[in-house]
């Protein structure tokens, strides 16, 4: 298989040029992706300010989690939007994927690079903006270490989300029909991780810390950014596990994608 990254860069650049041909359209969509973050964060800020705290966390500290989760979501969807179940379902049903398999490139690389969606940079930027705003309100004293932790949270959570999308796409090669249930892991997992993990029951906590580690990726580094002690059972050194666990999950997602592609049989003529 082609090991030259240049091919994928050229594919992505072609997609970008196509988007850039309609700048107004691109601007509206990018703005819309960002406005959603602003509105959601504003709504949650209104709610939390009414109550004053949740699970012992101040509103600004919770909003920092929201910002990290949205930044990770935006980043993951720039590359992974084409792996959403309905889009893979379309690739399979139209027979487009037959052509992808005949190309001298890795199918995953081709699908991801051809449909890079820069609109979601709007969501990532708005999420990063929310992190900065919330950190300011929470009185975070930015050091290079803390900035690194915030970046680690975003990168790892994005990797986990991308892993989920790869696994779900792999499953779609077998089932053909995409399923809304993937949303539970992608959007549900990120939504859940936007609140401090100690408010959930042990089953939910275990699932999103260790099985689908999006909670681990956001919550544990965020403890370091905010200078907080974790609850019992979540010692601070877990932050060293964040990157390896996220990488392992990403690899498992890649394996699921490959298994799905091996079972791909096309949908007819």
């Amino acid at each position, binding site marked *: 298989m082609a090991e030259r990254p240049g091919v994928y860069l050229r594919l992505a650049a072609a997609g970008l040029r196509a988007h850039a041909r309609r700048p107004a359209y691109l601007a509206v969509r990018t703005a819309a992706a960002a406005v959603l973050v602003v*509105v959601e964060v504003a709504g949650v800020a209104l709610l939390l300010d009414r*109550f004053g705290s949740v699970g012992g966390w101040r509103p600004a500290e919770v909003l920092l989690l929201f910002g990290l989760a949205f930044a990770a979501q935006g980043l993951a969807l720039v590359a992974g939007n084409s792996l959403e179940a309905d889009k893979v379902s379309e690739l399979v049903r139209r027979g487009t994927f037959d052509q992808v398999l005949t190309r001298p490139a890795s199918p995953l690389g081709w699908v991801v690079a051809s449909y890079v969606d820069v609109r979601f940079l709007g969501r990532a930027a708005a999420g990063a903006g929310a992190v900065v705003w919330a950190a300011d309100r929470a009185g975070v004293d930015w050091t290079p270490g803390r900035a690194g932790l915030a970046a680690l949270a975003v990168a790892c959570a994005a990797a986990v989300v991308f892993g989920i999308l790869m696994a779900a796409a792999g499953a779609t090669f077998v089932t053909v029909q995409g399923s809304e249930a993937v949303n539970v892991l992608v959007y549900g997992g990120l939504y859940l991780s936007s*609140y401090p993990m100690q408010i959930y029951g042990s089953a939910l906590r275990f699932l999103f810390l260790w099985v689908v580690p999006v909670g681990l990726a956001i919550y544990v580094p965020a403890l370091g950014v905010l200078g907080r002690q974790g609850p019992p059972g979540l010692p601070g050194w877990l932050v060293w596990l964040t990157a390896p666990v996220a990488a392992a999950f990403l690899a498992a997602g890649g394996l699921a994608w490959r298994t799905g592609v091996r079972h791909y049989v096309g949908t007819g003529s």
Partner: protein
Amino acid sequence: MRSYLALLGAGFRRQTTYRLALAAGLVTNAFFGVVRTAVFFALYRERDQVAGLDVTDALTYVWVLEGIFAVVWAPWVWEMAEAIRSGEFLVELLRPGDPYLRLLAFDLGRTTSVLVTRTLPTLVVAGLVLDLRLPATLGGLAWLTASLVLAAVVSFQFRFLFGSAAFWTPDYRSMFMLLFPVLWLASGFVIPVGFFPAGLRALVDWSPLIPLLMAPVRVATGGPAALAVAGQAAWILVLWLAGRLVLAAAGRRLVVHGG
């Protein structure tokens, strides 16, 4: 009348056919409902009442929201716009009877199916597991049912207006995408409208977004049911007039284009 009822039945059957999608949808609603429930339990741990709402009100809001989600944000929102763009919609204007009522009947058939297969089980299970403030009398249940059905009608009227944008622009999705975050917040899908600051709340209370979610929530939690339902009916009338005007204008536009 008979033909509209037949369309309603057809819409109902169409939506009920997809069992796997239904199961996936129920799982999604249950998951988000559980997370939102955990959040409100944590929020209310040290407080009894906030902005006049207690934890039972908040949880009832959560599960009515999850129950009605697939009615308000129905996945077929772009079907009409796609039909307009491809030209198929012309057939709708040629068929006998009134196009607006025909589309409403078919859409209402589909949303009624969602109400029966998603809203009802979600509310029943949540009501059995948690302490919710759902009506216990036959009269109260009748009001809630009426309010949910009216919410479905209003959601169709919004879908119709957004779909009609395709008469004027091929990029009909952009307007919706820019408006969506505002609708999402103002209709109460992020947080209950009761937690908004007073000024914003007053503004939202007089908007056609209240009938979508907050009116059924108010009926469910024992608010003034007749007032909430009357408000929904009033907005249905306004949106109906708006829909008719749009359809009339669009019809002239199609003629100008030569069909």
